[in-house]
């Protein structure tokens, strides 16, 4: 294994250890989507159509929370604390560091997704995933896209005190518009138009195909293209604008 990948692996291991060392935070992280599932599941109880919208929606929200939101918060914190600057003064390649951090977000996304799928099977009658290939493709695309956008958005956040606000102003509207809690097709036209442009809508759509309807990957190529465009934009700005230093005023 090339040295840079070995170092990325060690960085990943460290990030995982740091994550679990704050167990109550980890617990509530994983609890929140399950809580949403339970609440909305209670509201929609008995209506399998609504539940079939809810499960992939919450799965998509989980991916966004564990990648986009956590990277916005963590990177802003580490930058402000000077940890990023300190890292940059070592021989650790920047790419190895970022790969380790990215891997950490992906691991959380996988745990979260597994919890939602199991809850869907056990509690809400959606059954096991029907299209595993589509699940893998949309999960991978979603994770890469939303993690890159999280890194890119963290460049905009001026300091840690404002990180939660900067996260919420993106995260909350996006999960509502993208149809986490309802079927986008029932929304007014202008919201539907916005939703079609957002990546999370298509990630949820793909997850829905994989988890609920069993529709094949080929039926949804345009959605994957939208996610791909956002991922490319996110990666470009994630790398381009990366700041290791806290802004000084």
């Amino acid at each position: 294994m090339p040295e840079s990948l070995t170092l990325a692996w060690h960085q990943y291991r460290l990030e995982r250890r740091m994550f679990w060392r704050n167990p109550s935070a980890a617990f509530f992280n994983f609890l929140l989507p399950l809580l949403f599932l339970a609440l909305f599941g209670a509201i929609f109880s008995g209506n399998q159509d609504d539940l079939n919208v809810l499960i992939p929606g919450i799965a998509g929200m989980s991916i966004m929370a564990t990648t986009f939101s956590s990277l916005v918060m963590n990177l802003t914190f580490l930058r402000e604390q000077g940890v990023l600057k300190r890292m940059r003064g070592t021989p650790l390649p920047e790419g190895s560091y970022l790969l380790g951090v990215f891997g950490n977000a992906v691991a959380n996304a996988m745990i979260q997704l597994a919890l939602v799928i199991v809850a869907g099977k056990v509690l809400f009658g959606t059954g096991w995933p029907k299209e595993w290939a589509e699940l893998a493709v949309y999960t991978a695309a979603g994770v890469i896209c939303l993690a890159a956008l999280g890194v890119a958005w963290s460049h905009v956040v001026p300091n840690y005190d404002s990180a939660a606000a900067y996260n919420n102003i993106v995260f909350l509207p996006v999960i509502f518009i993208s149809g986490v809690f309802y079927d986008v097709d029932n929304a007014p036209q202008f919201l539907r138009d916005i939703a079609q442009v957002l990546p999370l809508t298509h990630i949820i759509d793909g997850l829905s195909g994989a988890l609920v309807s069993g529709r094949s990957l080929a039926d949804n190529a345009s959605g994957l293209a939208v996610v791909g465009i956002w991922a490319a934009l996110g990666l470009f700005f994630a790398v381009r604008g990366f700041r290791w230093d806290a802004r000084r005023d």
Partner: protein
Amino acid sequence: MAAAAPAILVRDLRKSYGTFEAVRGIDFEVAPGEVFGLLGPNGAGKTSTVEILEGYRRRDGGIVSVLGHDPERRPRDLRRRIGIVLQSTGMYRHITVREALAHWARFYPHPRDVDEVLALAGLDEKADALARTLSGGQMRRMDFGLALVGDPELIFLDEPTTGFDPAARRAAWDVVRSLQELGKTVLLTTHYLDEAQALCDRVAIIKEGRIVAEGPPAELGASSSRYTVAWRSAETGAMESRETEDPTALLHQLTSAALARGDRLTDLSVTRPSLEDVYLELTAEPTPAGAAPAEETADV
């Protein structure tokens, strides 16, 4: 010994932020194994200079060589051979001291033993403490440890003891001295004179982006040609002092007057300016071109 290539070479270094010129043409060299201090008030350009040498900032002009590399290109070989102690001390909150050192050690080709570094930094007892529970002084020791774990040839210390209590400062000084004994090259910035005096082989005093004096701390004061002669006046009983380029005549005058009176010349001292006097004089605001002699008071 043949003249070894300098560990650090800086020629006409310049750096501006917008219209503000932080560094205005600095030259200096640091020899291998030397402890070199950049001394100056806050905002003099010390950190800008050091961060250019560390590879954090780009220079606007001049030549910089660190261990034979241009730090601006951030070559990995250079980063393997240097250790950096930044002014800020941020760290993962939930990492233990030992874990941090062990993780950092992986970045380097020939790291030092973690236990050895714990001892060197004076952190044996805190090895299993989480970073968030450390005091400011202990955090600083961890900074030293993290900078040393890769066994670097050259160590940058940017204001390593600012905000320390006296005991913590002494402990940090001991670490720097042990680095010196290990043959490491050290570049440190400080605005404490006693620190420069206690640790540095050579010092450059920096003010408004320029070096205004340079040399071994002991000679910086002595190189000045002025002597201060102080004595207790026989008439008034008060201390008097006078500055002179050559004290011979003045001393002759004083001693013969005392002899003529059949009196003793009490509290006589002849001193040259200390580093502190030179520093205060050089960094006083504003700078007249010829640097007017500062008011000297007799130190008995």
